């Protein structure tokens, strides 16, 4: 898919292999032959309502600055002292990344039962928001640098409000 289309995805989540324990659970579940019962938990109406609630979650101004700083750092890593990353990044994250941050961080806060976003929420979702929006150069590919490594470094360099 071209980058511009990939960019439209809110998040790119990495799903790794299950742990041995989880694998075992899958195994047991298959063996037991029980089919999990399907029950309705929410009405569509409720989902809409919850979505509206998420939009009401408050993001402090300094947190907004923080998210913008993270996104900007993917474009100009040398500004936060990551000079060695400058030749590895072909394209930084687009403004869509900032918008996704606003949505995703509020969703995290909501799931945690908070009515406001704290820096933890932003840090937690940063990799999922940014990993598919940063375009690395072939030099980075040759050096086995991944976008996750880039985001990790940026998170370690940008001051938390």
């Amino acid at each position, binding site marked *: 898919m071209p980058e511009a289309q990939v960019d439209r995805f809110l998040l790119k989540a990495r799903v790794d292999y299950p742990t041995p324990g989880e694998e075992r659970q899958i195994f047991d579940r298959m063996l037991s032959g029980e089919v999990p019962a399907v029950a309705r938990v929410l009405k569509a109406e409720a989902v809409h309502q919850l979505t509206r609630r998420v939009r009401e979650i*408050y993001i402090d101004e300094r947190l907004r600055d923080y998210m913008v700083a993270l996104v900007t750092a993917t474009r100009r890593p040398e500004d936060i002292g990551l000079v060695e990353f400058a030749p590895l990044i072909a394209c930084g994250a687009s403004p869509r990344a900032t918008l996704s941050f606003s949505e995703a961080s509020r969703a995290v806060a909501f799931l945690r039962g908070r*009515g406001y976003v704290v820096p*933890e929420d932003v840090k937690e979702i940063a990799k999922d928001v940014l990993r598919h929006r940063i375009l690395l150069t072939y030099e980075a590919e040759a050096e086995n640098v991944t976008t996750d490594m880039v985001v990790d470094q940026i998170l370690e360099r940008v001051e938390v409000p």
Partner: protein
Amino acid sequence: MAARRSNPAVESRAARPSGRPAGLERATFEKIRRIQIRTRIILESGIGGAYHAVFKGRGMEFAEVREYQPGDDARTIDWNVTARMGALHIKKFVEERDLTLLILVDVSGSQGFGSSFLLKRDYAAELAAVLAFSAVMNHDRVGAVLFTDRIEGFVPPGRGRDHALRIVRDLLAVTPRGRGTDLAAAVRFARRVMKRRGIVAVISDFQDQGYEKGLGALRRRHDVVALQLVDPREREFPDAGLVALLDPETGERIVVDSGRADVRPLLAATALAEARGRVQAGARGRAHLVHHRVVRAPAVSVLQGTGAAAMKTLVVGGALLIAVGPQPPPRPRRPSRSPRPRTEVSVGESFEIEVRATGPPGCVFTFPGELSTESFEMTPAPVAADAKGTAPAPPPDVRRYRAAVYALGESQVPPIPVRYRLPDGREGEARTAAIPLHVHSLLPKAKDEQKLADVRAPVALSVGRMFWIALAVLATLLVALGAWLIARRRGAVAAPPVLAPALTPEQEARRALEALAAAGRLALGEYRAFYIELTAIAKRYLERRLEAPIVEMTTAEMLAHLRGAPHTAEMAPLLRDLSGAADQIKFARGRGASEEAERHLAAVQALIDGLEARLRPSAPASGAAA
């Protein structure tokens, strides 16, 4: 011919200085341009047939059988299927338009060898260029991997002349970081980047081990062509007297008496022969192994121009005269006006040969491209380019060659055959007379004259006793210098207290806290500003005191860090309450309470007190140094 006429435009585009990437030397750019032109000539003149053979089997992959639709080419109708189905069916093939050629080029230290006029590395560049341009002319994609003991560069597959030029440019401009060779790693890398079926050409001298399996695995998916670069002097070492040999990959040096007949076979790279066997084994006969002797290929003459200035030149005049008369077999004769030949040369030394053919007007000569015997090699001399970089056409009756001799004693420039065609259509061949040469070693041959009679080879170059003495003296001096510097520094510290007193983390934090308390934010009800400042002071203090990136941590990360670090485990609860409240006020528009805020201010003070008390006895030095 149309393509050839368009050449000047292409050249000027390639050579345009503004299009030149920064840092690329002009000489390199010249090389690229020349390689391009030369490659075009090779491809257009049909010598490239050998390379084209690589791109075989295109467009024959079966795709599907489907019903005939009006407009389909009637030739694609499959009559067998049609007969079975009772309706017209056609067979479709996918045209593999996306054929990809990946060129792996070894740029390691051993590639920097070349006995006559061309380093193996330059030859590899040229070979890669031929392949790249030939792929581009086929509208195929071409990419390149440059490797030593690591991956030095990767040009992802792409199309177009500019792309091929980029590959050549990268090849010539690369400054390898590694010196050794790790073919296995390069092959692994190729497998990773070549996701679709394609052709992989490996250009190397294969002076490595343990790559057979990787090459075999690569072959399972791709068509692998192994191109081994072998310099003739790697196979057979000339008698050149006493020689110092340097392994460019390890830096090891040995001195060898190549004048001894029992030593020379040892020097003829036995490793090379082994390597050759391995390539074949690894590829299990399916990978083509093409040997390229560095001095044999038609493309060789392109690169000689570089570095020619440093070469010692010696002109040996050879001339032949073709007489036209009643007797068709012409007798070559050496005219007296040719420069007197200098017949003294040393082993491997380059000298020039000028062959001048004279004949009746309208006679057309064809000079040989290159010539070599067991101990003699000759290739066309590069034509000196003028300021504009365009080579003047050589006069039709004169050719200059660059030659070298690789045997000691009496030798000769062999007769050089020149074909001619007379205006009346008769053809024939004339030869120059052999030019006798005396080839001397760079060292005196007599053993007592050498004063080195005991050199047996191969002998590792050992380090003399004087070296160790010098090393010891140097080390003593260094230690003394270090001691003096330390003493001086101690004295300087002891003298005046400190000129510009840098605040310790503790001092800085305490001052900031005082300032914060004095600012009276709480009285004004500015809780938000108060907490922002208070947490900033606490985090900055911790960052400096613990030398950990606390400022870049969130509350949870910070608490986890404090709990995990020595000295601070008990401090964490002090901060938990504060941070929770601070986050509420900072990020959730929470309201503060005066007495709670006072308590938090006190908590930060208690944190500083507690941490200082804990850190001071255990690390007094760090406190004093700060």
